[in-house]
């Protein structure tokens, strides 16, 4: 009996949303096509097969629903889930939108969510994003619209992590290959896919939420920066990102486009391999921090659009950010004193690894920093390498050069995550500080925000003093948008049509 009622409600609400969508689509104000330029081609269409937010996941987030959406201001907004709460330290409860379905009619209910979580936590068949959910113990379905996720230890960042987790239709996925095909459950559906060139999306007429704003959205691949800027100014594309800071003023002058930058959540720094001499020497590490004129880099290379880090790798948007720290001042004299104190042999040349074409103006920053190191008497040799090769050294081989340029962000925008990359024992750390470790352990022992903040405050103080990196700046998230749309920019990597709206 209950089941019948459920079915009727579902059909009714589906009818209602369809009518609503049809009415919306009839409005002429929405008749508009937009094109978004991406720097490289999509690797996979499986939303569980990629952790690349700026690339694969951005495109797929138009097609597949998430429980929660992160707004451009980083707040977590309801999407398929209308409500969520921590029941206790190890349990999160979610409530879902009623009557939501995929375009093929499969229901978007608690069972579907449970199936998707089971898909990525299947130890036999791990997916690219499985590590996000290693703490998940199980999913407890209460009703079609309610379920609980239990975790093995407190996981305060779970809702944030779920904002990157998209849902596939289970039945469809058993008959189709999600790597090469898609089935819409969100605002858009894929109408054309030319691998390596472009993907075209059109509105999903059966969408259960607020309808799509554009008649079509095309993601075009334009790897070359100068070509992306030219395409924007010629009116061929409506949205680009990763624009060099000095090009922003030039785009602004054009009648077709505007450009801007916001602080991103990605912090750029010079990573030290403190497991190798002389970077095991604290005075030497501090000396290098004093040797770099961070302000000059931010002002001259980034036109003042980059914000100098205040002695931590987190940006103000992170949970656990410490507002009380201050950056190492630019003081070459102090640097020389500390170098002398450290007793390090300065006749040696230290390798300085640079992942090519990875970070905004990374080549320029590296050369500027190397020159500043040279000015205080530290000789370096830049070694450019493919990002993949760098990652192999960093992760698989655990054989990072003594210096390297690195930019890191953590999508949950939480100290638990970004600071974990420096935790002793972590493959990415290259810095083994016990006092720091203790604070990180304290930071995830509870979901109480105040206790957690206190732990991260101490952790960041230790990190500032011990200087396992040269703290540089928060990489500006630069963008250019055509005057046909309004776009405010966002500092995480998401590149989405539904963050834009047609200009009046």
């Amino acid at each position, binding site marked *: 009996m209950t089941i019948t009622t459920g079915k009727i409600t579902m059909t009714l609400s589906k009818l209602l949303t369809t009518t609503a969508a049809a009415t919306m689509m009839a409005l002429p104000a929405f008749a508009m096509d937009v094109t978004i330029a991406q720097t490289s081609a999509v690797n996979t269409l499986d939303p569980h097969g990629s952790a690349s937010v700026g690339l694969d996941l951005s495109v797929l987030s138009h097609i597949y629903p998430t429980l929660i959406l992160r707004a451009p201001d980083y707040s977590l907004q309801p999407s398929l889930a209308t409500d969520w709460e921590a029941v206790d330290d190890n349990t999160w409860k979610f409530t879902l939108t009623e009557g939501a379905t995929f375009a093929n009619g499969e229901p978007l209910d608690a069972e579907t969510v449970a199936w998707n979580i089971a898909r990525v936590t299947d130890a036999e068949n791990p997916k690219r994003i499985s590590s996000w959910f290693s703490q998940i113990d199980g999913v407890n379905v209460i009703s079609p619209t309610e379920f609980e996720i239990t975790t093995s230890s407190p996981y305060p960042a779970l809702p944030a992590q779920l904002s990157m987790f998209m849902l596939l239709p289970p039945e469809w996925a058993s008959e189709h290959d999600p790597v090469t095909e898609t089935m819409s459950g969100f605002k858009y559906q894929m109408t054309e896919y030319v691998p390596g060139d472009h993907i075209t999306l059109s509105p999903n007429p059966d969408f259960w939420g607020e309808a799509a704003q554009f008649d079509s959205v095309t993601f075009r691949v334009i790897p070359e920066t100068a070509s992306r800027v030219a395409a924007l100014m010629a009116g061929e594309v409506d949205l680009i990102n990763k624009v060099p800071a000095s*090009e922003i003023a*030039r785009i602004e002058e054009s009648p077709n486009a505007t450009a801007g930058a916001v602080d991103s959540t990605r912090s750029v720094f010079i990573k030290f391999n403190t497991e190798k001499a002389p970077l095991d020497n604290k005075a030497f590490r501090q000396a290098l921090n004093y040797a770099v004129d961070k302000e000059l880099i931010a002002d001259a290379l980034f036109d003042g659009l980059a914000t100098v880090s205040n002695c931590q790798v987190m940006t103000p948007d992170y949970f656990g950010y410490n507002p009380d720290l201050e950056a190492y001042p630019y003081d070459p004299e102090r640097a020389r004193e500390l170098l002398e104190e450290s007793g390090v042999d300065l006749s040696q040349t230290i390798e300085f690894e640079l992942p090519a074409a990875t970070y905004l103006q990374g080549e320029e920053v590296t050369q500027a920093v190397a020159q500043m190191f040279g000015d205080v008497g530290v000789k370096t040799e830049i*070694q*450019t390498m493919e990002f993949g090769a760098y990652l192999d050294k960093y992760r698989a081989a655990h054989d990072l050069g003594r210096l390297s340029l690195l930019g890191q962000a953590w999508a949950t925008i939480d100290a638990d995550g970004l600071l974990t990359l420096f935790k002793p024992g972590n493959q990415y750390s290259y810095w083994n500080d016990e006092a720091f470790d203790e604070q990180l352990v304290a930071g995830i022992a509870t979901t109480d925000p105040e206790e957690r903040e206190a732990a991260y405050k101490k952790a960041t103080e230790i990190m500032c003093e011990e200087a396992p990196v040269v703290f540089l700046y928060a990489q500006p998230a630069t963008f250019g948008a055509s005057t046909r749309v309004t776009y405010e920019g966002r500092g995480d990597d998401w590149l989405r049509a539904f963050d834009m709206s047609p200009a009046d």
Partner: protein
Amino acid sequence: MTHFLKDLSRSRAGLFGFVLLVVIVALALLAPLLDLPDPTRGDLRARLAGPTWQGLFSPGAHPLGTDEVGRDILSRLIHGSRMTLMVASTAVVLGGIVGTVLGILAGYKGGFIDRLLMRLVDIQLAIPLMLLALLVVAALGPSIRNVVLVLALTSWIRYARIIRAQVLSLREREFVQSARAIGASTARIMFLHILPNVLTPALVVGTLELARVIIMDAALSFLGLGVQPPTPSWGRMLADGRVYLSSAWWTVTFPGLAIVLTVLSVNLFGDWLRDYFDPKTRSAK
């Protein structure tokens, strides 16, 4: 020598190429004596400054502008030419020595050695040279030595083919036959009698190879596989400047011009040199 210059002055293209090449080589050799700004040090505050002719001889002038980290482009061009010419000429000479020796060996000995060497050449010709260069440099790691080695590797085959063809006809000539008749050893014949007679074609191949190798060197460093920053190289300057192509044209235009002019001068001079040494075209004049 006078005959050489006289003949050269009659060919406008050859003369143009020769003079240009002499100027480029002279600039490269004299670079340390010229009062140029340090090519590896930049002033971030003066980045992407346009070319200016005002106060040309004052210390802070950048007649061809500055690059993306504020280094003087003129100074980087001239110092970069040292690197380019050094790498290219070493590779061409190295490839020339190997190719000539193997070419003489294949041509004079014939038989199994000839077949083996020529099949090796065939195999290598079947692989795109750029792909081969990329693979080798990626495997060995980017360094000047590796770039020279890989460029020499792509270069020896042309010498080997042409020298072998020359030797095939030379070994039937009377002076070789008579040397063999009086009992000269094979090595003596190859290197005292044949070698001097193939040096001219080797020289002509060398100049033409030089042009090709300069372009390939620029391509490798454009892809980040050549010399490492901040050491100046033309290809690298192109690669780093292309982001600013539309707002700071001077960052790519001048290195591009430098490559074009150098290759053009080498090609023009090389063409003339081939005609000069070729008895057929000479007697036709």
